């Protein structure tokens, strides 16, 4: 893939080493290792139950992995997020990280207006000027193509696609460096999916974000991801450049996955 004007450095932004998570005797995900560089988008694909979401939860600190290290390049240098204190991890999750849920209801406050939803992260890191918060919220609503006059409406009044875009605005407003996305286009119809993907691609490129996208939709990773990881039964069975993996799948499961996509 062509490298755009993003600056690739030698220092990985995010390093995962030997990460495993077990649910009792069952494997959630086992022995996952990868490096993610600044500006890089990694896709994780696999069928339901393959451990994608478990892996993402472990990476984002929602679950504690049983073994392994998750090292993030913080402002104070690389730190293991598994062993750092919860206060610090949560602060990082509010500033440097973002998490886009599959269901916008999980990621939004449904009883709070769109502006309040976008402003929450700003207020959480100490913004105390109403006018500034509102101006930033209006700016971000514009960036995700929500009209400024909807700022005081609650997410309930929004369509599914708008809710998902609002969730993205709410997450990106603090300028995170790493975004976790769990099926960001799940549950949306195809035309809305296309617009959302277009928007996401623009934002990721423009802000130089690194992202880890979990999905079972190969079209999503084809469009967004630089690199691809294929999971099955909790193990990574294949990884490589997206186009390489999708066009020339090596592992039997990947071949099955690629050939399962309906050609319209």
């Amino acid at each position: 893939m062509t490298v755009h004007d993003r600056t690739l450095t030698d220092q990985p932004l995010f390093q995962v080493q030997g990460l495993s998570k077990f649910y009792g005797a069952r494997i959630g995900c086992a022995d996952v290792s990868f490096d993610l560089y600044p500006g890089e988008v990694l896709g994780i694909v696999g069928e339901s139950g393959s451990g994608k979401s478990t892996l993402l939860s472990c990476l984002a600190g929602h679950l504690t992995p049983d073994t392994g290290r998750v090292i993030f390049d913080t402002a104070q240098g690389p730190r293991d997020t598994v062993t750092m204190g919860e206060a610090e991890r949560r602060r990082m999750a509010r500033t440097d990280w973002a998490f886009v849920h599959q269901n916008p209801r999980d990621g939004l406050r449904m009883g709070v207006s769109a502006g309040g939803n976008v402003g929450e992260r700003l207020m959480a890191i100490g913004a105390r000027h109403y006018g500034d918060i509102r101006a930033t919220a209006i700016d971000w609503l514009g960036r995700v193509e929500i009209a400024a006059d909807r700022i005081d409406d609650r997410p309930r009044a929004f369509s599914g696609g708008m809710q998902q875009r609002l969730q993205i605005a709410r997450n990106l407003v603090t300028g995170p460096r790493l975004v976790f996305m769990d099926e960001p286009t799940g549950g949306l119809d195809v035309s809305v999916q296309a617009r959302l993907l277009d928007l996401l691609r623009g934002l990721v490129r423009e802000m130089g974000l690194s992202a880890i996208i979990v999905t079972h939709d190969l079209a999503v990773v084809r469009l967004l991801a630089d690199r691809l990881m294929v999971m099955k039964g909790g193990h990574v069975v294949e990884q490589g450049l997206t186009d390489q993996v999708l066009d020339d799948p090596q592992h039997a499961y990947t071949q099955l996955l690629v050939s399962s996509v309906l050609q319209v």
Partner: protein
Amino acid sequence: MTDQAYNFAYLDEQTKRMIRRAILKGIAIPGYQVPFASREMPMPYGWGTGGVQVTAACLTPDDTLKVIDQGADDTTNAVSIRKFFQRTAGVAVTEATTEATIIQTRHRIPETALTKGQILVYQVPIPEPLRFLEPRETETRKMHELEEYGLMHVKLYEDIARHGTIATSYDYPVKVEGRYVMDPSPIPKFDNPKLSDNPAIQLFGAGREQRIYALPPHTHVVSLDFDDHPFTASKAAHDCDLCAAQDSYLDEVITDDQGNRMFVCSDTDFCRSRREAGHLGRLGTPLSEVEQ
């Protein structure tokens, strides 16, 4: 006078000890909600079961008790709680703020400045300021632990977005000594400034929710706000129609069905003492002419 069937101040000594421990812990960590084993009291929840237990734990036979409900000494809640302690503890009672050593209050701080040695006990319905924003108790505790109070400002943001100004007029959230965000019980925000640097001990008891928290004397308490929408202690833009006080919190009383109304001090003791001192409002009658 004391009903001998009851222990002094109704609760047994072990229970009072347990509550005093919670109070001491609360005073040691201003604004922190201390769980305690709230007892069943002979009154319904919402009538001040938390405040009553705190008062019972603080009372000594030498104390003078004052009980107010929305500032008034003569409303149902105040009268019944006062009677309760007269019967079970036999303590002296008063309506004068200056004479009381313990004041149990529902939703007001007396207008007369409190002094060193006094204890103000608040009745608290919902002690958790984050409750209506975050329903999970585990999560709100974590938020207090990690000082994640951004959500409190989201509430104020919503107020301004909807009403153009911070419309929260009671139960206005405060930050204690730069650490814990605290619910001051549903006092009007007019009273919020009195929370700060108060020489009296302020204790908060929530019976149903089983929490006690406290402000030791001279605690620094700040009402949350935005830089461009600062906190203002609002009241009705009138003078008291009975005592002409300009700086007291007012109740609006509708006097007929012609749209007439009057504004009177919600603090009855304050209003009466002003009238006794000769102040007379728009609709007031000099006390000398009132039949006693």
